[in-house]
């Protein structure tokens, strides 16, 4: 029995070690994940935090210098009911006017993802400094990998296609 207890103790130590690793890593590497409109409700609340923001690239806001790789654009909320999986659970809810019109300038340096363009949905990771979101990474989420451009054949015939 004594030996068995020793093994249980050893296993418990290992489990505790893994738990500690997870705990500290979560604390130090986590980022708040929200949509632009959720962020806009109280911008001051996440002043210093790491953020992952989901939003849409505002039409006509993209400025890109292919020489320096500097990119600037303005992020806006994704109109409800159109977004992909990052939209959140409240699909039916209408946005308050104030947050629906939230606009957040984003700056980024690097190569543009293939799918980046006006009106695309993106996820940016970084921090807000002086009202500008400094993104260290920029991900485009095509509505989905498998279902992209699903509407194409349907639209030709007046939107009679099937929903995914």
């Amino acid at each position, binding site marked *: 029995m004594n030996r068995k207890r020793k093994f249980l103790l050893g296993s418990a130590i290992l489990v505790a070690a893994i738990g500690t690793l997870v705990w500290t890593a979560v604390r130090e590497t*986590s980022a708040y994940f929200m949509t632009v409109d959720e962020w806009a409700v109280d911008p001051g609340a996440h002043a210093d935090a790491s953020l992952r923001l989901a939003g849409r690239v505002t039409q006509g806001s993209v400025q890109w210098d292919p020489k320096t790789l500097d990119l600037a654009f303005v992020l806006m909320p994704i109109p409800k009911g159109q977004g992909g999986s990052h939209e959140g659970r409240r699909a039916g809810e209408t946005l308050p006017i104030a947050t629906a019109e939230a606009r957040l300038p984003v700056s980024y340096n690097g190569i543009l993802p293939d799918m980046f363009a006006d009106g695309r949905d993106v*996820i940016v990771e970084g921090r807000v400094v002086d009202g500008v979101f400094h993104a260290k990474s920029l991900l485009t989420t095509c509505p989905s990998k498998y279902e992209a451009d699903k509407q194409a054949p349907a639209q030709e015939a007046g939107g009679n296609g099937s929903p995914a």
Partner: protein
Amino acid sequence: MSEIGRLAIVLGFVVALWGIGASVLGALRRDRDLVASGSHAAYAFSALVGIAVAALLYLLLTHDFNVEYVASYSSTTLPVWYTISALWGGMKGSLLWWTFILAVCNAIVQAQNRAKNRDAMPWVTAVLLSVGAFFLSLLVFVTDPFERLSFTPAEGSDLNPLLQNYWMTIHPPSLYVGFVTTTVPFAFAIAALATGKLGDNWIRTTRRWTIFSWFFLTLGNLFGAAWAYVVLGWGGYWAWDPVENAAFMPWLTSTAFLHSVMIQEKKDMLKVWNMVLVILTFALTIFGTFLTRSGVISSVHSFTQSGMGPFFMGFLLFVLAVSIGLLAWRLPMLKSRNELESVFSREAAFLLNNLVLVGIAFTVFWGTVFPVISEWVRGVKITVGPPFFNRVNAPLALALVLLMGIGPVIAWRRASWQSLKRSFLWPTATGLAVGLASLLLAGGNFYAVVAFSLSAFALTTVWIEFWRGMRVRQAMLGEPAWTALSRLVGKNRRRYGGYVVHVGTAMVFIGIVASSVFKLEKQQGLEPGGTVDIGPYTLRYDGVRTESDPHVDKTLAQVFVTRGGKPVGTLEPEKRFYKRTKQPTTEVAIWSTLGSDLYVVLGSYDAPSKSAVLQVFLNPLMAWMWLGGVVMALGTAICMWPAWSERTATVAAGLPAGTRTAS
């Protein structure tokens, strides 16, 4: 043809229900005719699903765009090979494909066990058909792959260009085979619990299925990594995306099972644990399917919010409830007859290895679902990214490599000091020497130094095992070295195949560590004639050339590479534009050597000025990862070999003597 397919899946569903009922009833009433009827239903199910797959394939190849699935995932200009891969390129097709693989496995299981496992088989049939019926019910009631449109588009909207890659044609089938075949050991485990025959017969029967499943899970993960590496163009191959994690978790628990099952066979211990691992592995494959189909967790390659989520969640909960219920009911019968005797024993090393593997699976699970949990608990979505997974798993991976060196050679029960010294003196010395060398060469990166040192330790133990085994045969039987080596492996395929897998794993590990720790990266805007240096290479940008066909436009940058002044060749990183989907993609160019990969991305191209931005990575020892994967596959094949040779032997025995030599 779509009507035939539709009819086949509806009939398949009905047949599956019949088979489940007949098998369960037959088992309870001990009615042989009913049990046989259930088995026949399993064959019929396989045939019907086969017909459905053939029908969908026919529709794809004949470009019947009136069928919604065909119109959505293919086009007339899509190459034939990718048209076939469109079979699993969309959600509906992938569900059908999944069911098909399961149906094939079911038929094989039925054939293998015609005259064996009479008590267990009805339950096995019922479990396999239940899982099949669940997948088919989605296709029959929720999302019909044979759905027709009210009009016929002139052209399909094509397969997503990111999926038009050779790795993508083999990655999903491999992974699905790996996923689906976990159902077979699960079914036998459930049957063992149901019948109360809890000896290790079910483990022996499913041993090769487990290895087979592990083989394809390994390949599936590696093919997926290779796809990400050559297609996504960010210089890496693994981003801890939920989709990747979903494929990785069953691999971890399956690896744990492959090890702990040896303890059960040799020492009759860990019975409950093994049951748990088999159930967990199967549940994680369903969970993975749930993750990728539900949109609950956002992923870079999020699939779709398909409304499939609740069905998979429901099925998962059902599976867990039934399994845990059965396990709890039979718990008293699963007592071990032996206990651990010493910390310095193979049992203890294997137990630790299991704890670490399951620990990694848990951290990956936790990191993947963390956004959902934090939203429940605190009302805010908090995500953890790659830094979390890397930080947590780096020390665990190191521990695993250490155990990989210890486990195979430490003595059973209780290792004496003498035997420890005999087994580990040289490996430890080699490990320390390599550690010292990499400290001097590679500098003060703690992880890299420890990782290389431990890998050397693990590789040396394997080397010594082969060496000693070979010397013994040479000395006792007078065999020449190569004969001794091949007979050594041939006579203990499982053991030495396992060692070869360890060598491959160490190589993959070395490749991962080197390519992530010592990666170099540069971005540079270049005019034609401009150069950029990275590591030993100099790259000169010489403008672009273009190619065009009805399917795709290509812009190929001409990058002339030299190494230390000597020309290496011209690399052509591309930008592509797929005309059907109107989607641009990036095709990387890779110059791969054993030492490093030169990985070149055409970041952007400005036609008027002919200037381009190149993104260049130097990934050290990257090739080790892929070669390690090949070695792992080879080792697993050695482990599986007896299955084939035994069968050939029985087949050959039934043939006239003359034909035997010919084969």
